[in-house]
């Protein structure tokens, strides 16, 4: 159920905004960021795409929307993307890996842990990709005099 996924991801990301002490008026925006990232991830995995590229796309979208919000409301980007990537973190896989380690099934455990590591890398890569695109856009828009130092 996609509606169910959308609502729960929105609520959980906004709740993470509360845990991280984000401003009250930015909670809804946090929710939107997290919901969009999770939506992309769920749709892609439902179409049979592997979890690694799906996480990459999800975190890319999270970072992209966070940057738009950060520029629109003149706040640090960290407020939006930190809560936004939480749903994508491979908690389930890490848990399965740990469980198999405990049950002495090392072969399965190692492969699950490798997968969790790859997904974490994909999330980081997605954040970086959109960062690069953001910088390129800003560099092409602004004359070099105004563009002094990147504020990421």
């Amino acid at each position, binding site marked *: 159920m996609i509606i169910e996924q959308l609502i729960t991801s929105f609520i959980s990301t906004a*709740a993470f905004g509360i845990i991280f002490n984000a401003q009250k008026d930015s909670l809804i925006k946090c929710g939107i960021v997290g919901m969009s990232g999770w939506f992309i991830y769920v749709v892609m995995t439902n179409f049979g795409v592997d979890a690694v590229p799906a996480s990459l796309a999800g975190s890319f979208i999270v970072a992209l929307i966070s940057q738009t919000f950060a520029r629109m409301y003149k706040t640090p980007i*960290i407020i939006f993307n930190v809560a936004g990537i939480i749903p994508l973190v491979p908690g389930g896989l890490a848990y399965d890996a740990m469980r198999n380690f405990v049950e002495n099934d090392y072969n399965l455990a190692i492969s699950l842990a490798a997968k969790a590591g790859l997904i974490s890398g994909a999330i980081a890569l997605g954040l970086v990709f959109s960062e690069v695109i953001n910088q390129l856009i800003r560099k092409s828009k602004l004359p070099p005099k105004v563009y002094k130092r990147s*504020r990421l």
Partner: protein
Amino acid sequence: MTIQQEYTYDVMEVCLLAGKIMLESGAETYRVEDTMMRMAQAFGAKESHSYVTPTGIIFSIESEQPTKTKLFRITNRTTDLHKVTLVNSISRKITSKELAMAEAYHALKEIEKSGVEYSVKLQVLAAAIASGCFLIMFKGTWVDFLPAVIAGGTGLVSFILAQSLVPIKFFAEFVASLIIALLSLFFVSVGWGYELDKIIIGSVMPLVPGLVLTNAVRDLMAGHLVSGLSKGAEALLTAFAIGSGVAVVLTFL
């Protein structure tokens, strides 16, 4: 002390205070450095250098007199994104010359003193609801929603309590995940919950080091290798603590 000297010291004081609040509230290292240098520049410092690590700030301003340097030690780091936003907006105002130095200093002091945005109760409630929602997101059934909510809320409460008892983060995370796993096991064995794995995964999510992980990557990308690596190590340690807490319970399954 000449007026010029005094002025330079005041500038350093304001910049360091801003940097301290940001770093203690969980801002990225490069943002702290950037903010401090922008503020110093706006106050007319010719050249300033800052070196920020997760545990301390070194800041120096060059002026007509010999270079002045100050070191600031940071011991406790929490997550308070609201304070990061406030300091950021003050730094913007300073750069656009809207705020004089004395006003900025008082505003920063005010921010430093102010408490957290949400009460502990509300945070626990948020963690509890988030746990339940994560259960649904990880394709759990609605039957397990309530057990996950209870386990997740109890997890954060025990994390806060354990940290106030023993100020070692690793230990607090270990205890919290241990209690979550025990509670989930209890729910499943009593018959209130069905999928043990899903309940544990959902409830553990509020403890996951998402902020530290993102900051580590962003610091690494910005070229702050020391901070990036140490934050990455912090995230890894947290993940390990959570994993071992759950693993202890799973061993006796």
